[in-house]
């Protein structure tokens, strides 16, 4: 692969998007769309900028972007409506 060597190591913006960090965590958030009030608390507090309020039909709800979600649980811990649950990824579940 050819290395691009820019003047002084200057880099283009927002290239971290190429790094999918969705596989870092063991858990992932699940939003209860009934409970979600679209208050944006999770959106403001997600360290990874990967949960946003989007329009779904008539309502607005929080939607995690699992490509980047590291499963930290900040959104779960701050949700005032108790609308987010953390679930263990399938691969980590031990079968009984």
């Amino acid at each position, binding site marked *: 692969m050819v290395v691009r060597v820019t003047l002084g190591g200057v880099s283009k*913006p*927002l290239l*971290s998007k190429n790094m999918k960090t969705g596989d870092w965590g063991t858990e992932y958030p699940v939003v209860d769309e009934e409970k979600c009030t679209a208050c944006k608390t999770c959106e*403001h507090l997600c*360290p990874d*900028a990967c949960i946003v309020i989007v329009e779904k039909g008539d309502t607005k709800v929080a939607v995690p972007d699992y490509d980047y979600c590291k*499963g*930290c*649980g900040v959104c779960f*811990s701050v949700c005032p409506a108790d609308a987010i649950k953390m679930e263990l990824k399938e691969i980590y579940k031990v079968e009984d």
Partner: protein
Amino acid sequence: MTYFASGHGACPGCGLAIAVRNVLDALEGKCFVANSTGCLEIISSQYERSAWGVPYIHSLFENAGAVAAGIELALKALKRTDEGKVVVFAGDGATADIGIGTLSGMMDRNHDVIYICLDNEAYQNTGNQQSGLTPMGSNTTTTPAGAIMLGKTGRKKDMISIAVAHGLPYVASASVAFHADIRRKVKKAAEIEGAKYIQIHTPCVTGWGIDGKQTITSAKLAYETALYPIVEFENGELTRVRKIKERKPVEEYLKIQRRFRHLFKHPRGQEIINLIQKIADENAKKYNLDL
């Protein structure tokens, strides 16, 4: 619009990433960032993996204050000040220890810069070594809790007072526990001409030994115990504090973090906890925090 993109390398639940996002959002991306060496730089500025959506520069560990001053001077000289504000992001070590000289120079000359200290209370990038802002009793790799020593001795350097003493028009502390407050303070700072200092409490999951789910709750406990007073100074006058409804004992904050675990096991641990409680009480009195 994203100014600090997903895909950066911060630990899950990282407090400073939260602070940075809220600062940049408050400024709507109209800013120039100078960043000192530290966690933030390492997680966000790898060549061709930059997370930044605003013009950003990292030079060295101890010079972000001066680099920001240089950007501000250049924008003035080139008549480009309308492009945006100059913002520093620096860690607590870069601010209170190695970079205090360039910070002091920047504040003394009153450059039009918003200096944000991301206070995670130790050199976390290199694995939790004590800094001037490490709190009393904290177990760090350079103040390790052992048979006779119980972590960091002495208290946090009072950077807020140091900033106020420089005659700054605006000085504030904040916490990721109150993100709307961060945004309000940054917006306010942006409207004031001159040097501004804002210190934001940003829990470090790795260094503090907490879970991502405790990032915000631990930050909130620091406030609720009065160990991290949230205050605002304008032109040297204390203009606003975040009052505490029912102040909690410091144990509640300490016990959830691995860095303070030894205090609950060591025979002399209670002594240190008492001293920490004394710090909290003094904070509450100094800033009249109790409602």
